[in-house]
């Protein structure tokens, strides 16, 4: 169960998933190295969320091989839940639950939870610990969601549409935060459609279109002249 530095944190090979006749994922393959920040980019409906669902064990792929931290998400889902932290898009908490209560609850799910006080300080939620979820700002809710994804001290974290709906300052704070998280040794899979975010944070990115990966590499190598131009060229039907 121990992984060496430089080994693979996430491995996806030949992933295929169809809903009826609609093909959501078609031969998707990529791998994420331990300690890397890997970006999954694409427009709505490109297959990012289905990929996340398969990695988190929420959906069974029709074909293909997935390993997350060396585990098969379907077969080893119990172990997987201990080492994978997930921040889901648009996931909420009960309105009247306070920040500290949510943290204590989620901490009770894990064998080796992180210290709540330290995590709250890192995410700048210290002063909000007794505030109910409903009363938090969008940025604070987002940070709490990240805190809950990290409370189990995961080795791998999936952060889905992390900064959607945040103002520019809150967005930059979140980016700094992701850098800090990576520096603690956590491997991060970042799902986004913000090119500046991917350029700023990701070591490598994969661009998805219609259930396929159409480009994979470092933002600098893909982005000529910018990653956004490359993204539009690869994903806009009117262009290609």
């Amino acid at each position, binding site marked *: 169960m121990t992984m060496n530095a430089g080994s693979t944190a996430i491995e996806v090979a030949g992933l295929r998933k169809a809903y009826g006749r609609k093909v959501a994922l078609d031969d998707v393959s990529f791998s994420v190295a331990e300690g890397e920040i890997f970006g999954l980019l694409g427009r709505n409906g490109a297959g990012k969320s289905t990929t996340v669902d398969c990695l988190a064990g*929420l959906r069974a792929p029709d074909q293909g091989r997935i390993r997350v931290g060396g585990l098969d998400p379907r077969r080893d889902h119990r172990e997987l839940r201990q080492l994978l932290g997930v921040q889901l898009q*648009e996931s909420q908490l009960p309105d009247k639950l306070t920040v500290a*209560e949510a943290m204590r609850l989620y901490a009770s799910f894990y064998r080796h939870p992180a210290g709540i006080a330290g995590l709250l300080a890192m995410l700048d939620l210290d002063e909000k610990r007794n505030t109910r979820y409903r009363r938090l700002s969008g940025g604070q809710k987002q940070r709490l969601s990240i805190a809950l994804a990290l409370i189990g001290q995961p080795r791998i974290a999936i952060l889905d549409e992390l900064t959607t709906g945040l103002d520019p300052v809150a967005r930059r704070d979140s980016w700094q935060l992701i850098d800090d998280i990576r520096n603690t040794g956590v491997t991060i899979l970042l799902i986004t459609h913000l090119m500046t975010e991917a350029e700023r944070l990701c070591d490598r990115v994969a661009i998805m279109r219609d259930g396929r990966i159409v480009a994979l590499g470092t933002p600098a190598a893909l982005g000529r002249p910018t990653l956004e131009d490359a993204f539009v060229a690869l994903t806009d039907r009117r262009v290609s």
Partner: protein
Amino acid sequence: MNMLKMLTLTEARLLLREPLAFFWGVAFPMVLLTVMGLSAGRIDGVSLVAIYEPIVIAFISVAFGVQGIPVQIASYRQGRILRRLATTPAGPVRVIGAQLIVSLAVIFIATIGVLAVGRLGFGVPLPRRPWGFALVVIMSAAAMVAIGLLIGAVAPTARSAGAAGAVLFFPLMYFAGLWTPQMSASARHIGQFTPLGATTQALGDSMSGGWPHPAALAVLGGCTLACAGLAARFFRWE
């Protein structure tokens, strides 16, 4: 076990923060019973307060089971809370288990409160078959919770879950006798095949010293199994 304990404590805490749910499910039945007691009315020589005691006990289980649980489950689905929990070691089933535990516990506590109001306020004797009475309370609470689970399993939004619970409230409580404690023979005959008609009759039997009729228990058990089974079969996690 620790996870279920924490989830149950959390759900209990959240319920305590809903004053309206508490008023409707706990205070209102006691208020209604008190009004009946103060009116000092009688039907065929039996005091209204004694007639209404089983009815308001049935009311409690509808308030928390049929009206409360579906909204909780549907709002957790809508807020993607069930899905979020599915990515943690706790899983989504445990939080629903915690909601059922809390709802059943509150139903029992409120039932004891109603018995206390009847006994201390108006001298209604406590059930003379306490075990038979307890059995019916447990089985009717289970039946209402199972109906609530079924609504929560399929209702797409908290709003539609609330509407379904509100609509079901009327036929269920009609046959319990909320509006017409003195039902016609034919209504009473139909009523005994509905879960709350069976409940009030069986509660009345065990209050006056008889054992609950096996047919009433069969109705409640059948309702529980059917609704819980359908809920498990058709549960939408997202």
